[in-house]
């Protein structure tokens, strides 16, 4: 993987050796050639991108100050609102929904002179781990077209991996950035919950959701993260920018790297080996390595699905056929009208999660399920807290397996849920985690995942930098 890729491109644009317009044309021609095989996008904004590129070129020529993303193209996951564009969430429900406002991250990247190239495909309402749950069409892995790109932000990851965009924005509720980053052979990061505003991100699990960057390399991810993070009055969970993750100044030779044995428990041997080889590389650079145990990780998947589904079913309540989706037939009782519209509007996986979430928050069930999940989540977070008292970062594989074939897991939701085992803990504990390529298996890429304590993104970037060297 070419390190410094994003930076080089940015420097070229700023120096005038590559115009923003040329940059856009390069990406558009790649899209022209390969999008039919990949299907990374739901909408492509070729005209808007060209127009914006011209404005930026004029600024550069006129020596007007430009933003830190000047001329770089960005693919945006279709659950992030761009004013005047469809925010479909890859769902029939929002197929015709045009967002009336910009998400905070969109305001921020536009202020930094980024160029939005398209709205990327995803699993419907982010419910999925391989991007085959899009109500429109699945996205294909650019490294092997027969295989999934990972999900739910599969379109965003595929767009960067296939050279359709310099950078991409995804969202990560239980691994939805890190899984596709791992499968598509790029860098993806979910920062500390609250570092990036969720305003304008269509809800999945509100206490878990976080918008984050995709890039070819860690510095690209760092650049995009620094542009989008910071306090926002429209999202109460956000930290002031001074606290949020920024530059990579940490010295890894002083690091203790924790290796939780649970992270390797069900991992494919090939995957485990690639990750362990990379850890040796870090050891060689002076980092100390320590085997630890995080027993609660065994329960992370059920804790995650209970928490997420409860929040998801609440968030999905607004799609009732009266305001969005297939119009309800209102010439009947309201309950029937709404159920009928919802039955028609949602895909299978969305329905499964809404039903599960509704069930576990019912009066007779809430104590047995949802309340218990909240308590278990606290216990799991506490375990991570303790681990970070002795370790700077925790390292393991991002995904236990290599990308599977399209359709392979579509009829086995439980298998699909289990593939999230290594990514969901970071969301539950609200800590930062990133995936970076660490080896190949044939055409396929293997991802290594780094966790750090809250607001210690710098440590993750330091590790990634060391691995890229």
């Amino acid at each position, binding site marked *: 993987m070419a390190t410094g890729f994003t930076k080089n491109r940015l420097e070229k644009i700023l120096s005038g050796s590559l115009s923003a317009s040329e940059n856009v044309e390069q990406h558009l021609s790649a899209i022209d050639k390969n999008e039919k095989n990949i299907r990374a996008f739901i909408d492509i904004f070729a005209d808007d991108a060209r127009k914006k590129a011209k404005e930026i070129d004029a600024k550069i020529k006129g020596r007007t100050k430009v933003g830190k993303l000047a001329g770089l193209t960005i693919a945006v996951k279709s*659950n992030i609102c761009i004013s005047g564009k469809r925010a479909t969430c890859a769902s029939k429900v929002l197929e015709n929904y045009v967002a009336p406002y910009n998400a905070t991250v969109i305001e921020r990247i536009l202020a930094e002179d980024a160029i939005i190239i398209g709205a990327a495909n995803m699993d419907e309402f982010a419910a999925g781990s391989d991007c085959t749950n899009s109500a429109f069409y699945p996205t294909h892995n650019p490294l092997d077209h027969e295989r999934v790109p990972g999900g739910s932000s599969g379109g965003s990851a595929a767009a960067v991996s296939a050279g359709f965009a310099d950078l991409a924005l995804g969202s990560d509720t239980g691994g939805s950035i890190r899984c596709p980053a791992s499968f598509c052979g790029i860098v993806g990061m979910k920062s500390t919950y609250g570092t990036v505003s969720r*305003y*304008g991100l*269509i809800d999945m699990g509100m206490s878990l959701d976080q918008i984050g960057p995709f890039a070819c390399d860690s510095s690209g991810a760092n650049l995009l993260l620094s542009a989008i993070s910071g306090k926002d*009055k*429209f999202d109460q969970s956000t930290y002031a920018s001074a606290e949020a993750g920024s530059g990579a100044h940490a010295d890894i030779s002083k690091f203790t790297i924790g290796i939780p044995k649970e992270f390797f428990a069900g991992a494919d041997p090939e995957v485990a080996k690639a990750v362990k080889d990379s850890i040796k590389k870090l050891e060689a650079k002076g980092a100390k390595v320590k085997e630890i145990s995080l027993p609660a990780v065994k329960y992370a998947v059920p804790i995650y699905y209970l928490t997420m589904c409860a929040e998801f079913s609440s968030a999905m*309540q607004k799609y009732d056929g009266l305001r969005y989706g297939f119009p309800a037939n209102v010439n009947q009782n309201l309950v029937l009208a709404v159920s009928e519209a919802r039955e028609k509007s949602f895909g299978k996986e969305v329905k499964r999660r809404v039903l599960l979430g509704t069930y576990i928050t019912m009066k007779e069930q809430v104590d047995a399920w949802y309340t218990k999940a909240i308590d278990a989540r606290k216990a799991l977070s506490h375990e991570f807290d303790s681990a970070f008292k002795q370790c700077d970062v925790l390292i393991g594989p991002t995904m236990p397996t290599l990308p599977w074939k399209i359709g392979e897991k579509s009829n086995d939701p439980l298998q699909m849920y289990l593939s999230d085992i290594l990514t969901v803990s970071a969301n539950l504990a609200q800590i930062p985690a990133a995936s970076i390529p660490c080896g190949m298996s044939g055409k396929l890429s293997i991802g290594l995942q780094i966790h750090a304590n809250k607001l210690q993104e710098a440590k993750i970037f330091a590790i990634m930098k060391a691995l890229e060297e």
Partner: protein
Amino acid sequence: MAEDYAGVIIGLEIHLQLATKAKLFCECPSDYRNAEINTQICPICTSQPGSKPMSLNKTAVKNLLKLVIALNGKLDPGAPIAVQRKHYFYPDLPSNYQRTSKPIAVKGKLGKIGIWELHIEEDPGRYDLKTGKVDYNRSGVPLVETVTAPDFRSPEEAREFLDELQAITNYLGNIRSEPGSMKVDANISFKGGKRVEVKNINSFKGVYTALKYEIVRQKNMFASGIAVEQETRHYDEGQGVTTGMRKKETAEDYRYIPDPDELPLVITKELIEEAKKEMPELPRAKVERFVKSYKIREDSAWVVCGELELANLFEKLAKEIDPQKLAFWISGPLKKQLNYRTLFFKESGLRESDIKTLSSKFIAGEITDKVMEQKLIEMLNAQASGKHFELKLEEVIKISDSVELEKIVKQAIASNPKVVEDFKAGNDKSLNFLAGQIMKQTKGRADAQAVMQLIRKLVQ
């Protein structure tokens, strides 16, 4: 009266709008009364996909605390206001869940009525069943719900409580008490019987009518041997009746969950102190003081103190006018005209100087009650139609000169021989006609009683 209501148990849930500039979770204006449909909305209060609530409106919270203090509720410094989501499907609710807090305060008391709890929530939009349109201007307006203990034993007790509550909201000045900005749900049962909930009563007056109706209805059912079932009924303001809505077999499941987007706002000691500092003298205290220092009757004191502006006016004028007579005049003639027009004094446009002139002249016996009432009506009508009105009393001063009055009466008798004949034939009522003629001729300036006495004396 008391026997009529034997065994009646009533509890109230009162929703009041907090008069804040902005809505509860966004920056849209909260006063929607004169706004065009859907002009005071944003992605947050229409719950657009992806929008998140802003943190609780601090002013709304302070206003709520003041109401809690007025109702003698217990506040727990350091306690968070935990916002929950209450799920149900309805077209006026843009997210199909309502944000509502857990109880902010518990165990209050107003008079002998216990207050169970107060909490804050957002108002839904307004759904027009006829057009099928929803106006989201109201969506997100802060509401405070007060839940009383089932301590009322008659509709009169409920009315008394609500009158005091209305006075309190008027004194606090931060709660909208206009029609349409409040809503009451009433629970009515007879001892040992099932509970009926009457929903969506939109005025304090409506509560009284609804309760009276519902009690009679339940009594009639008992009398005919029909059991009252637990149910929710709707109050029809136009008809003054309650109608069945839906049978409540089991409690509806709202699937409450803590709102993951709303960080709990802590009620700090400072915030409580700040609210306490801003508390005015409350109606109950004012009534006590007025009774004590002005020696006015308690029932008139409650009327005078029912509105802060009226109470203030009273105190000002009482420096120059006999307080007892003044209180009697305010709670009687003045309040009668205001009530007739369902006006608060502050909305009436009546000028303090005019009120002072009118009441003092009347109390001093310089104008008759007829003239006083006439002038009051003229003033209010002029205000209502936006016309300028000047109060002139020179020409309407009471005819106190008995010689002059005798002359007028004699003249009337002389020019109505037929009426006098009728009287002599035994028709006592015919004298009323004469009196009426004289009152008309003098434009009410004559004292009605004196005129009648004179007629009787002179007609013989």
